[in-house]
């Protein structure tokens, strides 16, 4: 069921919001033990919201598109009075004290929130295996990962436990799980959506975005959550910027395909599916051109794994066993409270990244690592600027492989990092990008990535809708 289908059903009174909500809550009860997409199920909140929407419909009022439509929220986005764990032991019992701006916006539209979904701890990971509470399974194959870090959000949509969900993306965490689970995932331009109320991971890279069944649904949710927020001074008002479509017909669409993205280790099926997608666009009349993004694969990965942990090391300092969350018992003094609370409350991947970041920012190493990585970041932005002079959108694979088996990459951190190789440069440059289902490798979903110029979400959404019709 899509958002428009749910909306039509509600206004035509084919079913009530209460009935719709209950049927999704039943689905969650059936499936969540198997798939483990949800950490917290907010049935009371959902049913109360549902009743309000039914009252509105009964009174004959108009309702917004998202009113009465069940959604799931990644558990690093705060909802007032609801537990928010970031999938970490250090926040296991933490109750949020305010709504994130995106939640405020969704609540104003009458959205029905069914629960908080599983993620890699503090959004650090590419498989959701780093959750302190257990891994989520891929609904297409329960022995495989759903991707990460927004694995719970993607699995919830793919298995029909909700109509849409919100995830967050710092290096690919919306797009890669969307690709693995066969759903649509949009990472907006940096600044398009407010980060107020998103538990910060890397503040120059994070963005919240929708995970949906269709591109049209992604457009609806993005419209609802985007916009300048006085509480987030990096947010920007979109106005008509996002409406821009540089082409009205597919014949005017120029698609760039970067040659460096067809790397040696890429899965044969992934390559086949992406090349077929390019042919589909070409047959429909788009102009395809091979382009070069020389810094955006290997160098981008190294730069990202310096910049991101550096920002992480600063953002994680607040989890100290004093302000909130888990506090270790039996500590000798204040320093011991810090050391023990963080040792016991934070998982391996989180501590790994904090240490990496502490190292790269420390005296004697700052120039050779962090400063260098920032200069590489400039080179990546320049690569995209140059490419976007000749192309309207850029088409790439999302991940070198389809969903891998649970446990396959969890022993070697570096091999897990390589899963992000195609998505990362986009965050460094702050560009909008969407992952759209494009085919199957055996039975496993594979997506393609469309990247746009800053604030040209319209271009990639329109191209995405065209592609959906071509498939």
């Amino acid at each position, binding site marked *: 069921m899509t958002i428009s289908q749910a909306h039509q059903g509600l206004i035509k009174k084919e079913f009530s919001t209460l009935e719709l909500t209950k049927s999704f809550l039943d689905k969650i009860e059936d499936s969540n033990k198997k798939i483990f997409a949800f950490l917290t199920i907010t049935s009371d909140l959902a049913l109360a919201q549902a009743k309000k929407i039914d009252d509105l419909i009964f009174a004959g009022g108009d309702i917004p598109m998202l009113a009465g439509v069940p959604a799931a929220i990644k558990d690093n986005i705060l909802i007032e009075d609801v537990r928010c764990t970031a999938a970490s032991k250090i926040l296991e019992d933490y109750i949020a004290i305010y709504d994130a701006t995106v939640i405020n916006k969704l609540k104003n539209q009458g959205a029905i929130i069914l629960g908080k979904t599983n993620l890699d701890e503090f959004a650090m990971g590419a498989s959701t295996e780093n959750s302190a509470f257990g891994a989520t399974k891929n609904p297409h194959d329960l022995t495989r990962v759903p991707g990460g870090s927004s694995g719970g959000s993607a699995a919830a949509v793919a298995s029909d436990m909700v109509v849409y969900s919100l995830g967050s993306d710092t290096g690919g965490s919306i797009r890669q799980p969307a690709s693995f689970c066969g759903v649509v995932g949009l990472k907006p331009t*940096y*600044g398009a959506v407010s980060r107020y109320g998103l538990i910060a991971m890397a*503040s*120059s890279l994070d963005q919240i975005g929708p995970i949906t069944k269709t591109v049209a649904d992604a457009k609806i949710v993005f419209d609802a959550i985007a916009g300048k927020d*006085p509480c987030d*001074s*990096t947010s*920007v008002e979109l106005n008509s910027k996002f409406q821009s479509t540089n082409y009205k017909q597919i014949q005017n669409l120029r698609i760039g395909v970067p040659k460096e993205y067809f790397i040696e280790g890429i899965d044969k099926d992934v390559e086949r599916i992406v090349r077929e997608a390019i042919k589909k666009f070409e047959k429909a009349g788009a102009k395809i051109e091979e382009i070069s993004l020389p*810094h955006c694969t*290997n*160098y981008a990965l*190294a*730069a990202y*794994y*310096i910049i991101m942990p550096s920002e992480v*090391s600063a953002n994680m*300092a607040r989890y*100290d066993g004093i302000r909130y969350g888990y506090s270790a018992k039996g500590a000798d003094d204040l*320093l011991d409270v*810090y*050391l*023990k609370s*963080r*040792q*016991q409350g*934070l998982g391996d991947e989180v*501590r*790994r990244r*904090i*240490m*990496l970041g*502490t*190292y790269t920012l*420390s005296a004697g190493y700052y120039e050779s*690592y962090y*400063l*260098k*990585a*920032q*200069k*590489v*970041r*400039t*080179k990546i*932005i320049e690569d995209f600027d140059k490419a976007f002079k000749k192309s309207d959108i850029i088409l790439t694979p999302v991940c070198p492989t389809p969903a891998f088996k649970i446990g396959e990459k969890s022993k070697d*951190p*570096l091999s897990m*990092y390589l899963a992000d190789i195609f998505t990362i440069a986009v965050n*460094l*440059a*702050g*560009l909008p990008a969407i992952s759209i289902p494009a085919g199957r490798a055996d039975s496993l979903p594979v997506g393609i990535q469309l990247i746009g110029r*800053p*604030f040209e979400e319209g271009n990639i959404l329109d191209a995405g809708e065209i592609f959906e019709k071509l498939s």
Partner: protein
Amino acid sequence: MITKEEVKHIAELARLGLSGKEVEKFQEELSSILDYFKKLQKLDVSGTAATSHPSAVKNVMRRDEAEKEPRKILSDFLKVKSILK
């Protein structure tokens, strides 16, 4: 290869407690990741400026005025919720 002393030093800076086994484990993992970064040495970025974030805006300010009138007592004091019970 990063040394055990360096790992312990970083952990202390980051206020992370580490057991002996953990020091060894992270030493291995951090070393292999830091090794991967060596590929950046091939790149000449001497003429390039650093980018700290892709934000479209700079220095977003607002007037230094209260958005809501706070409740005042005796014209000079502000009333807030009690912190200590």
